[in-house]
């Protein structure tokens, strides 16, 4: 029955495929895919190079000094006989809006995430999850419209001190926009905490609240911090809401009732206006964009790094 000398395999019918053609195709496809992947690096590189090159051109102008740009507290590129390019009013406006936004999004998002992850009965979950997904899918221009036509009139009717364009209204809208991001990233972090930790605490007679606050939250802390950072980066870079609701007066102020201008708001103003190409105010938008990129990219990089390390801990 056994015949070791014979070829044990049955011959397969058909003609063999060309090995060379296969190898060439394989190589070409691999090269194409590598090209696709390198494209994303090209994007990052061109962002850095273009923004830096134009910013350098801006700093070379006679009207501009680097010291004033980084330390000046007056930003008046369009009006007045003497132009001033001190970026702090723009940063101040950005941070003010971001602070308001985060004071809305972080606590609400954190509590919602804890609720979703640790408490929520399936029925409420089935309502909450889609709600947050819908919120996340709404274009930011819609939030801007909402801030301008609903939140601002509401604020003014509550308190006379609010201006038509104000940081507070824009901040609330940005906060609503960030809420789904905070919630979903935080919930991910909470879910990554092993079930066994919870079981251990419950087994010692802890209440659900004690398990959530004393066990799960501390264990997920770095993941939550990462979620917060990513949300902050989003708030800093948000454009349409502030362009509609925050105004366009670069004020050095911490009063959220006043009109401010953010970095993104300034860029919108320049690109919508008839600022002459290659004039100082046009070039200044590149310098502002560079600052914005450095800030958001920095926060994102740190956030992603913390997030990655957090994930590794629980894998």
């Amino acid at each position, binding site marked *: 029955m056994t015949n070791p000398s014979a070829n044990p395999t049955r011959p397969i019918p058909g003609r063999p495929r060309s090995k060379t053609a296969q190898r060439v195709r*394989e190589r070409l496809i691999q090269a194409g895919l590598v090209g696709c992947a390198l494209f994303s690096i090209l994007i990052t590189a061109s962002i850095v190079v273009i923004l830096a090159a134009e910013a350098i051109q801006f700093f070379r102008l006679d009207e501009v000094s680097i010291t004033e740009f980084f330390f000046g507290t007056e930003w008046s590129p369009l009006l007045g006989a003497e132009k001033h390019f001190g970026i702090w009013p723009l940063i101040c406006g950005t941070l003010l809006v971001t602070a308001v936004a985060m004071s809305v999004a972080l606590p*609400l998002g954190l*509590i919602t995430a804890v609720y979703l992850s640790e408490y929520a009965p399936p029925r409420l979950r089935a309502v909450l999850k889609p709600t947050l997904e819908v919120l996340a899918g709404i274009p930011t221009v819609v939030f801007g419209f909402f801030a301008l036509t609903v939140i601002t009139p509401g604020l003014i009717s509550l308190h006379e001190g609010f201006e038509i364009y104000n940081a507070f209204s824009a901040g609330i809208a940005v906060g609503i926009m960030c809420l789904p991001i905070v919630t979903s990233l935080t919930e991910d972090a909470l879910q990554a905490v092993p079930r066994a930790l919870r079981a251990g605490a419950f087994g010692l007679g802890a209440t659900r609240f004690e398990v959530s606050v004393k066990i799960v939250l501390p264990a997920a802390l770095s993941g939550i911090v990462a979620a917060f950072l990513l949300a902050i980066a989003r708030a800093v870079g948000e454009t349409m809401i502030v362009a509609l609701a925050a105004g366009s007066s670069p004020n050095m102020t911490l009063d959220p009732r006043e009109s401010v201008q953010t970095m993104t708001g300034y860029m919108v103003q320049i690109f919508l206006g008839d600022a002459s190409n290659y004039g100082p105010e046009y070039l200044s938008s590149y310098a502002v964009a560079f600052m914005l990129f450095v800030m958001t990219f920095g926060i994102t990089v740190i*956030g*992603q790094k913390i997030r990655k390390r957090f994930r590794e801990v629980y894998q």
Partner: protein
Amino acid sequence: MSAEVTTFGPDRLSRHGRAASIALRMLKDRGFVVICILAATSSILVLSWLLWSILSSGLTYLDWAFLDDVPSRKPEKAGMGPAIIGSVLVCAVCAFFALPIGVGSAVFLEEYKPTKGKWVKRLHAFVQLNISNLAGVPSIVYGIIGLTVFVEMFGLFGSANDPALAIGSHPFEASDGSSYLEQAWYYFQLPIGRGVLAGALTLMLVILPVVIISAQEALRAVPDSLRHAALGVGATRWQMVSKVSLPAAVPGIMTGSILAMSRAIGEAAPMLVIAGIVFITYTPLHLMDDFTVMPLQIYEWAKKPQEAFHAVAASGIIVLLAVLLGFNALAVFIRNKFHKPLS
């Protein structure tokens, strides 16, 4: 206080400290639940409030003519026909570029993981890190990059009004004797100017990270056992990818891509930099033509001081949200209909 006598069983705790009030602990637990429910319902309330306020003011001007009409100085005559066509064109061209590149990158990252070579591995990790970081870059920054790279092309080819290269235009003499350049539907110029193509390419930069990340997730959901089976019968890497992993991941990739495109439709900031606010009363004739998109048109209306235009903006928002709803419904449909178990 050190215990002088070692105790066992229930006595061990009762000899140390005071008992915490169970009632108080349970109260905290209940109180926290109440806070949670308040926080959670607030997001539902905000969403309903937002939708209600938009619907209540937007339904005034919303009719079929609104979808077709051109923008107008009179609110009751204004429509978003050109903006809808513009959005469709820009997103279609954007998808044409973004989907192949995005899925290609995802395949490289998920299916061509290097096993040997320190530098190749580093490059791989760097690309991955870079993509998650690109997702965090504000979209207006992409707008500025698009303006420099696509619209002006670094000024290498002159200005958009006086292009260095123009294909598909020919002089045309009107009946009154004046002559101008007529542009065919395939008109192409360098630099490409503030046209549909520039908008689409810029939008591609914005959504590329989203497409890549969602396609990666879809590929990751394909179990490794299928890949091993394919390699086990002697498939090359690409045969494994094209015949096993990709087909299995297609529903997921499509769902992710549709959601990415719905993000693209709603993007206003980069479009604002590329297209500016232009008063357009016609639909784009070719890919270099001026255009506007729905969110940009909404922005323009919302920015106007007259209250009546805010209602028009709300109508526009209803149309935009309806389109997004359609996209999401399609994504959910594909997810449910084609999502087969894989093992």
